[in-house]
């Protein structure tokens, strides 16, 4: 069954690889580019951030609302240190150094969030991670010297080499897809490793795991560190996609959006994050076209409500439900 899942995942990635060419065949040039960069590309970037939450929730049982903030930490560190950003805060580093620095910072922030929240669970964990996220958000919004306040740091255009310019939508899409695939298979591998098995043990019964001699706290903090790294990858990509970062990117709205993506996609498997972010991105982009411009948020809300009502385990749960229904019908 495991290998079947991996095969399907590989097929999915291959299909996504081919999709831009397919879109270019059937859509006018401008629209194919829009779908590639601004629907699929954006969905993949947000999917990575949502997957860091799904990873924690599915295999550790921790619902963290700090993931968007951690993604923002990577974005801000990148924007602070990279050359060419406006205004120049520190600058002086190329992307080859600034991006890893951002990822290290996000991992460290992940570990910090994990360490601070290590004794909490359920609703209390939710609250403490939300508080941390809002604290960082408010700090970033009011600090001018390091984060340039409300306006944020602009002009983070991304690395460009001859033949490889991240501003080219095709290049960006494939970089995002490659990153997402690596992280996705990385997560699938990790959860079958001894570390991942202990993590799932902690989810099911932390006391028994502790009795077996494992350190529950350390495993929890490490899991938050891994999730921090994943979120950091998403934050880096989103900063380059947005040509910069401002506090709005990590505000309450963005934090909740990541949770919505994870929940409507389904918290049962990492792929749910990407399905959720695709559904979210499509509705976020087109709701105003489909429905009254002044009230389109109502439509977005209704769609999400329906998904969660029909299938409490999200979009990936709908598949399981359908299969069970069909099986019952056949009998």
């Amino acid at each position: 069954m495991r290998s079947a899942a991996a095969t399907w995942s590989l097929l999915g990635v291959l299909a996504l690889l081919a999709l831009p060419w397919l879109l270019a065949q059937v859509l006018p040039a401008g629209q194919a580019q829009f779908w590639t960069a601004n629907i699929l590309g954006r969905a993949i970037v947000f999917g990575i951030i949502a997957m860091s939450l799904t990873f924690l929730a599915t295999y550790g049982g921790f619902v963290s609302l700090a993931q968007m903030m951690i993604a923002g930490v990577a974005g801000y560190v990148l924007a602070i240190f990279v050359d060419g950003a406006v205004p120049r805060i520190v600058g002086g580093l190329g992307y080859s150094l600034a991006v890893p620095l951002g990822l290290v910072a996000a991992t460290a922030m992940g570990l910090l969030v994990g360490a601070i929240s290590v004794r909490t669970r359920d609703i209390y964990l939710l609250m403490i991670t939300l508080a941390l996220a809002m604290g960082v958000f408010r700090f970033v919004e009011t600090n001018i010297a390091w984060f340039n306040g409300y306006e944020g740091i602009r002009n983070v255009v991304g690395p460009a080499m001859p033949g490889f310019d991240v501003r080219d939508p095709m290049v960006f899409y494939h970089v995002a897809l490659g990153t997402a695939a690596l992280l996705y298979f990385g997560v699938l591998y990790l959860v079958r490793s001894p570390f991942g098995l202990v993590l799932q043990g902690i989810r099911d019964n932390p006391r028994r795991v502790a009795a077996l001699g494992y350190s529950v706290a350390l495993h929890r903090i490490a899991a938050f560190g891994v999730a921090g790294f994943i979120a950091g990858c998403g934050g880096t990509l989103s900063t380059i996609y947005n040509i910069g970062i401002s506090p709005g990117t990590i505000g309450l709205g963005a934090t909740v959006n990541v949770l919505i993506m994870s929940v409507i996609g389904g918290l049962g498997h990492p792929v749910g994050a990407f399905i959720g972010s695709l559904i979210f991105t499509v509705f976020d982009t087109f709701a105003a076209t489909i429905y009254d411009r002044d009230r389109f948020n109502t439509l977005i809300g209704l769609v999400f409500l329906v998904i969660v009502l029909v299938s409490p385990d999200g979009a990936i749960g709908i598949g399981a439900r359908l299969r069970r229904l069909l099986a019952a019908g056949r009998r």
Partner: protein
Amino acid sequence: MTIKISRRVMLLGSAGLAAGGLAAGRIAAPAIAQNAPIRLGGLTTLEGPFATGGQDAYRCIQMELERINHTVGGRKIEFVRESSNAQADVALARARKLVEQDNVDIILGPLSGAEGIALRDYSRTLSGKTIVNGSSGASDTTLRNPSPNFFRFSTDGTQWMAGLGRHVYQTLGIREVAVTAGDYAFPYAQVFGFNLEFCRLGGRATHYWAPLGTTDFTSQIAQINRSNAGAIVVVHGGTDGLAFMTQYAQAGGNKPLIGGSIMADQTMLSARGPHRRVMIGMISGGPIADVIDDPTWRDFVERYRKRWLNEGGFQSPSIHGVNYTTNLYGILHALKAVDGDLSNNQAAFQQALAKAEITAPTGATVKLDHNRQAISDIFLNRIEERQGNAQVVAFDRARAINQTLGMPEEQFLKLGAPSRDNPGCVA
């Protein structure tokens, strides 16, 4: 097994979504032919703290487009509306959608400062498209690193304060003020413009900053009421301004008020509450007033009332509505000048925009400087009670104010960008 099925569902689902998108794409085929309609994308905020201003912007645009029967230079104009929530990344995502999915030729927007800077940066990555500002008023958008295809026919936050500092110091004789302002680009620009005159004459200002979206100003108000300030300069926008004024009135405040440009506006005055009492008599500077002794303005207001008073409009058009209209006039003027010709990557159209000399709805003449930024008239206003309504009445008018308030550009740039650490009070 669940996993296997879910993957299949994912593929099916994305295929379905893609198919839906294709269908939508087919309907909105791009306008390439020269006699096809010109697609004008509107970007304003229908969500968040500036929602009322954004709604009014669309009212004014719709009214003006209806007046010319959606036709200019022999071509139809199709107006595509989008909405942001005053956040830079949301504005950017919507602008990308307008350009790439809706295939607009020109974007008219956005409304707030950080969005303006983000869209200016985005405009640099576009060729053959033009972004004309809506109502965003951060000075850096056009002053530093301007973009060749970003135009602004509305004046910026610094310009709007022209003459106010001098009036407070010389005419009102106030030597010390408390400045309470939002902690972001637009209020920085406004405070900078006020201080440039006020501090230079010898006045002293103490600053109190609060982030956008602040709802509780009580501690700030307590500090201000205890201070020696002879007047309060209030530079908040949207719901923040309303919250400050309401709490100031409830705290029994009685110092004279000097307002930023989006404080003295119908979006504020038409809201119910105790703030209306303290706001009578408030002095402010800005690109518009409710009552301006000018036939162009009287005509515009009359048409606005006739069209919108029964459909949720204000007593008088808001500052955002007028700014969007001024920028729309710039677009329409240039489109007429080139007979709707957007070929050759809009080169002729952009040249016509740069050379355009128009009359704003307020009756002010507008032309652009070398950074494609408006040089126009600024009004000094007082809020008066007229026929039971609070109204902003213009009592003075400074003509042809440029972006550096008459200072040589080099000297002005040396002062540095407005920020909370650089509010313009330099000796």
